[in-house]
């Protein structure tokens, strides 16, 4: 559906060039909900805008629906209006001088399809019905709330029956509660209509809820592509592991028998041995288990609970093992909020990466 190869783009910022896209290769299947996830400045929006034709890359090729719309080698650069897309903007871009119906009608009667007024009317009704705004046709657009504008923007993008739906952080201007509701609605609508979507966000929860597959981006590169489960459980590096939720890191050294010698003692690792020398091992707080002091399990460690926070649906505690602090998450009823405990770090839940000094964080600074 979307096929991108070798896409590059530099921005001139003052007197030095900033690489926004450093050779992106990407395939999106028909009917797939694909999310570009990354912190600001990662190049995700530039990539989306290049697909839309709103940004002109310096090199590479983009084809949509089997048709090449951009190619530096073939000197093709189709304008946005020639690409079969619908798009939802971060600011919604609802035309304030028109009514809700006119906002949708304009793209139907003067856009790619040039429908008659009557045909357009039916499509407007249908599109507004999809986003549950049936009675809003004659409402002036500037009188709409943020959430309603967002829905009109979605209706407008769907009304043109696009081969591909592009969305640029469409939920970032909504308040937290509404965001969850709209997120679910978009997911249901996308599944029902079977549309192909390319969706940009910096919010990993949003990405995990919506995506069939996610591409994690940083510094103009794709770090990893996978479904949400793969990214959470098998991150390809420590930054991605951190990006998808909190994790405990321990520094260590790979021993001859494959175990890793860390600050809290040698740990058994289930993952195949990939690295030698200095490594970091990571384990997520919810994977740390409390066990009986006599339990027959690997990686069993004795420690003391230092602090504990009750957060309603779970407890977050810090356990001190020697001088090292490990965070662990437990259900409120099982929680131990003080005293001596024994924790178990399941070997198959431990991830290992080489210990690079300059660990670049994916989190925005």
């Amino acid at each position: 559906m979307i096929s991108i190869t070798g896409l590059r783009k530099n921005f001139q910022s003052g007197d030095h060039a900033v690489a926004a896209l450093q050779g992106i290769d990407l395939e999106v299947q028909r009917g797939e909900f694909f999310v570009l996830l990354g912190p600001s400045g990662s190049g995700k929006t530039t990539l989306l805008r290049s697909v839309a034709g709103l940004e002109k890359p310096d090199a590479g090729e983009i084809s949509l629906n089997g048709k090449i719309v951009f190619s530096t080698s073939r000197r093709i650069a189709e304008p946005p209006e020639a690409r079969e897309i619908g798009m939802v903007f971060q600011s919604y871009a609802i035309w304030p001088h028109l009514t809700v119906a006119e906002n949708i009608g304009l793209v139907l009667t003067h856009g790619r399809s040039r429908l008659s007024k009557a045909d357009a009317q039916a499509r407007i009704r249908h599109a507004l019905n999809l986003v549950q705004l049936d009675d809003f046709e004659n409402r002036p657009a500037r009188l709409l709330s943020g959430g309603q504008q967002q829905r009109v923007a979605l209706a407008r993008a769907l009304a043109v029956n696009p081969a591909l739906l592009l969305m640029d952080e469409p939920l970032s201007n909504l308040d937290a509660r509404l965001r969850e509701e709209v997120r679910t609605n978009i997911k249901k609508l996308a599944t029902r209509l079977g549309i192909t979507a390319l969706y940009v966000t910096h919010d990993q929860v949003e990405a995990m809820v919506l995506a069939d597959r996610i591409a994690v981006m940083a510094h103009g590169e794709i770090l990893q592509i996978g479904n949400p489960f793969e990214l959470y459980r098998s991150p390809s590096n420590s930054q991605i592991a951190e990006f998808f939720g909190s994790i405990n890191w321990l520094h260590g050294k790979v021993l001859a028998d494959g175990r890793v010698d860390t600050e809290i003692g040698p740990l058994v690792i289930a993952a195949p041995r990939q690295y030698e020398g200095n490594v970091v091992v990571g384990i997520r707080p919810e994977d740390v288990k409390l066990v009986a002091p006599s339990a027959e399990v690997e990686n069993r460690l004795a420690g003391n609970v230092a602090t504990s926070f009750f957060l309603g649906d779970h407890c977050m505690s810090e356990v001190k093992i020697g001088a090292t602090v490990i965070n662990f998450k437990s259900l409120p009823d099982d929680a131990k909020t003080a005293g001596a405990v024994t924790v178990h770090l399941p070997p198959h839940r431990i991830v290992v990466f080489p210990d690079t000094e300059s660990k670049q964080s994916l989190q925005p600074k």
Partner: protein
Amino acid sequence: MGAGLKVKGRWLFVAISVASLLPVLAFLLIIFWMGFWQGSPGDPVVYTLKHYRALFTDGSTYRTLLNTLGFASTTVLIALFFAVPMAWLVERTDLPGKNLIFALATIGALVPTFFTSMGWVFLLHPRIGIVNKFLMELFSLEQAPFNIASLTGMGWVEGLGLSSIAFIMIVATYRSMDPALEEAARVHGLGILRTLRYVTLPLTFPGIIAASIYIFTIGLSAFEVPAIIGMSNKIFTFSTFIFYKIQPQEELPSYGMAGAVSSLLVVLALLLSWGYFRTLKFSHRYAVVTGKGYRPRLVELGRRGWFLAWLFLGSYFTVAKLLPFLLLIWASLLRYFQPPSLAALEQVSLKNFYGLPWNLLFQGAWNTVLLMVTVPTLTLIVCLAISWTVLRSGLKWRVTFDAVAFLPHAVPHLILAIAAVFASLFLLRDVVSLYGSLAILIIVYTISRISFATRIINNSLAQIHPELEEAAFVGGLPLWQVMRKILLPLLRPALVYAWLWMALLCFRELTMASVLVTSQANVTLPMIVWGLWLGGSLNQAAAANLVVLAFMLPAVILYLYFGRRSRFTEVS
């Protein structure tokens, strides 16, 4: 800051504001009062309504009204014709050389209109204009094809002069618009032209209307073009009509008639200003601050498009600024004006420059420099006090201060000057002798710039959080120290920009000078040029004009270096 906060020393600030704003109200009252005077000042006062009757019944007054409307409308059309495409090219296309366009537009706004007006007379005057002479010879015409001494001609010159300001205003409209609004049209299938027609133009329309009203208001009271081109050909607009009533050549001055026309003009200008703000407010409803760092997708013009665009821009700059300038140089080198030819070339000399009244010029230059230094400084001091009173004093009447501070923008400057002359001649004569002094120029120039400077300082002050000052007050600093140590350093970029811009405006000011300058003691450079022109020494006036421009050049360079950077840095 709550109204309860008693800041030490705030009454000084309020007092300065009151002292500087009271004359504005006094000037307005004087103008309205003047309109009911039967005789000349000095005669026993008799009140009458005859001037107001004459305003609408007398043929020549009525014609003046029509002239003014025609002149101002032409001005708007000409200014928009150049400004709108120029703003679109700069803001929405990939045209190269945008910094150059901004620099040229800024310089364009600074070139005095009396300067270009003279150039246009040499170009298109029916008797001496070289384009007319050339065309008449080429096609053996009986009559000159163009006549600059007409409403259309004058509107053309004024419109070209104001196109720079219109351009800067319309660029601001484009910038306040979310570029995603246009992109949304493009991605859903509307081409460049349809996007322009259905999205860009409707959305920028309120902004363009607001700019039109603004330009129209300036046109209504514009003085320089009608004075240079119209007056000697007996085509009067409001401003020259008023001037003529105050300083007639054959009859006695009629302050009453001038007062009546001025009152009408003031009311019109206030109504238009109200309309301007209404429209502007409407256009702000469309403005969206996206906070997104990206520039909108630029329309690719291609090489042919670049060529055509630069052809348009190049012709505009040539016609609007360069051509009048070249004509002035040519005229300054000749004793009698004639089209370029071999015979004319032999007569070229610097005699006009030698023959200039150099003593007067140096006196004028000295006065002008004094004005350039004192007026902006005084204005900034006064306006800091006003802005602080409006935004920070917590005073009950602070909104009124802001409204009065805006009046000098709406009220034509010529009328401010006439009120000042009237006051100095007939009300304050026995108290203080201001008539014919440099002091009266300083006072009126300062009052006329209060609106501009308070707008700039208000904008900057509003962005400084009051807690920054409150922290200092809590620490025990008195107000003047807070001003010196906290506000002034934070406001500095805005103050530097405003100071330089006002200094340049002082240099080119002819309108207010035309009634305020009455002696050699307070003569300014533009007045000397105008004096030569009115006296019929066109070629000498041209030479003097070039000398004045040469004096102005260092100030312009300073402005471009220090002032412009803070305004247009975002353009790349």
